[in-house]
């Protein structure tokens, strides 16, 4: 596959703070690439350096064969940028905003076409302030498509949305990819990255701590198997035997709900036999999730709080 963005040893420092600490990655044409990490991990800063909005302290970036520091205008015509929690003119209608922004490019799509793509054609004459959270976000994404870009940058596109609106956006983002565009997005939702992204780079304190195709990343977990079970009575002997096969812990300190992480199929089979003797009220066997891997890698759970 053709690599459309190359980032090499990229560093961004603000005084003593190193926001982005020597990261390198490539993005392939036509994929959805996710930068995953907590608030403040350096995702947005990385994105904005590629977009040419911030100057790297050191390192090199190449996007569509151009350098953002010297050939920014060539790049700007071919990329679409959705900023984190960005707003638009309050006194212009959706169609007017799209026409205005379209006018900034040599070639652009018609506002009606764009609004139809996100099912907002009925709102063409509304103001942004009158839209729901999900509609606003859909508009914000489609506004980044006015110039029919080759690469689309989405900075936390689903933050603050309810689950239904988020799923709608996932559909939209997939549609954009299916049009042949390359999508780079940041998120702090594990589930979102797992479902949406072809490849993921996990960022932590300005560094990339893991990067691969999503399913391979998850498979790289040291404990790819997981059992969840609920038991009324605890049999100490069986618990001791289980503990030898994998990591067992109670979920959030509950006395009857446990999670067990296992490293291989063999141990999984043995554990399931032992569990039958325990006669649990309920149990599920599953694969480790991206979140499990994230906790494994960073030693903590990601903050779900909204970006303030």
């Amino acid at each position, binding site marked *: 596959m053709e690599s459309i963005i190359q980032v090499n040893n990229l560093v961004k420092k603000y005084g003593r703070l190193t926001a982005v600490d020597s990261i390198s990655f490539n993005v392939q044409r036509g994929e959805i690439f996710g930068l995953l990490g907590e608030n403040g991990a350096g995702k947005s800063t990385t994105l904005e350096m590629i*977009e040419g*909005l*911030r*100057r790297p302290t050191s390192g090199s970036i190449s996007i569509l064969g151009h350098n953002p520091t010297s050939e920014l*205008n060539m790049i*700007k*015509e071919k*990329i679409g*940028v959705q*900023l984190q*929690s*960005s*707003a*638009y*003119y*309050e006194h212009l209608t959706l169609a007017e905003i799209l026409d205005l*922004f379209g006018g*900034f*490019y*040599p070639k652009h799509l018609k506002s009606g076409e764009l609004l139809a793509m996100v099912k907002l054609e009925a709102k063409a004459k509304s103001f942004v302030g009158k839209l729901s959270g999900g509609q606003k976000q859909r508009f914000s994404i489609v506004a980044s498509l006015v*110039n029919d870009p080759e690469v689309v940058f989405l900075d936390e596109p689903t933050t603050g949305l309810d689950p239904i609106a988020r799923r709608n956006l996932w559909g939209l983002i997939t549609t954009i990819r299916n049009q042949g565009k390359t999508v780079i997005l940041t998120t702090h939702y594990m589930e979102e990255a797992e479902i949406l992204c072809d490849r993921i780079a996990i960022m932590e304190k300005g560094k990339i701590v893991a990067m691969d195709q999503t399913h391979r990343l998850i498979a790289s977990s040291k404990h790819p198997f997981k059992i969840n079970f609920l038991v009324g009575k605890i049999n100490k002997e069986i618990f001791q035997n289980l503990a030898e096969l994998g990591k067992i812990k109670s979920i959030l300190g509950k006395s009857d709900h446990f999670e067990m992480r296992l490293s291989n199929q063999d141990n999984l089979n043995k554990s399931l036999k032992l569990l039958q003797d325990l006669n649990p009220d309920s149990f599920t066997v599953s694969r480790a999730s991206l979140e499990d891997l994230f906790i494994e890698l960073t030693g903590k759970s990601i903050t779900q709080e909204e970006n303030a």
Partner: protein
Amino acid sequence: MFPIMFTVIFGFFFSGESSGSGTVVLKNYSQTEVSKLFQKSLNESKVFKIDEKTSALEARDLLKKGKISGIVEIPQKFGDLAPGSPKKIKVTLDPANLQSNAMLLGFLNQFITSLNFKVNNVQPVFGVQQEKTNSSDLNYFDFVLVGLIGMALMNSSIQGVSIAMSRYRENKILKRITTTPLKPATFIIAEVLSRLLINIVQISIILLIGVYGFHAHIYGNVFLIYVFGILGAILFQSIGFTIAAVSKTTSAAEGMATAVAIPMMFLAGVFFPIDQLPSWLESIVKFLPLAPLLRMIRGIALESASPFLDPINIVIVLAWIVVMLIISSYKFRLSDE
């Protein structure tokens, strides 16, 4: 919006269109030629609104309440030269209303004096020739009208630009624009030009309301009023950009813009001539951006004076523009970096 409201309000108060000094109740009990002449000339003087219907008793009550300025009573047979007929017009005034009292008494004295001359067949020997500093007929409304143009330009530009720009920045509209190929300079020029267009409309509306609504007197070259109005608008916009550049939030910009514009509105001569200020204060405020601008536009509008004869005002305005442009071009950025 406010300057237009102000224009209308000031127009009603000061344009001299309404009978500015209030209402006088006139009771003419006499049927003589003289009394009719008096009645006629008081009516025609247009200094007062004349009310002849209210009864004398009612009028006294209204006078006490301050609803009317005075009562003039012409006794029966006044003006009849026969001996024993009354020789005096009775005036009742509200002592609190000094200005209209002086006007009414002045009018009455003048009338009586000329009447006396006529009766005695005497031509007045001495007189007063009245001359105004200005050959033209100007009043306070004309002064304020130009002030209001300055105020409109100042408010819409300083507050308009600084608040709009800091809101655009807060909403990331400015940052969003930097992601497009649009050049920042193009964006700024478009913003400035569109506002100047609005300024031209503003000046036009205020002049139209002032001149056609309230008979303001504009003697000078209207084109020059626009030219210097635009010059002022450019100055105020550069102040607006400077405020947007140095304030971090929209509310900070709002506060700063108000702190700049409101004192300037009162100190730089929108409503009062600044030479009425203590001289030490005047020597400071005459350099405020609005002051030289108003001096020039007033000169053009009211005295047909050329602002180029004494270019110090132009120099002050240009100096402000240069200073503000230097600060804002260093400080004002569309993006974070």
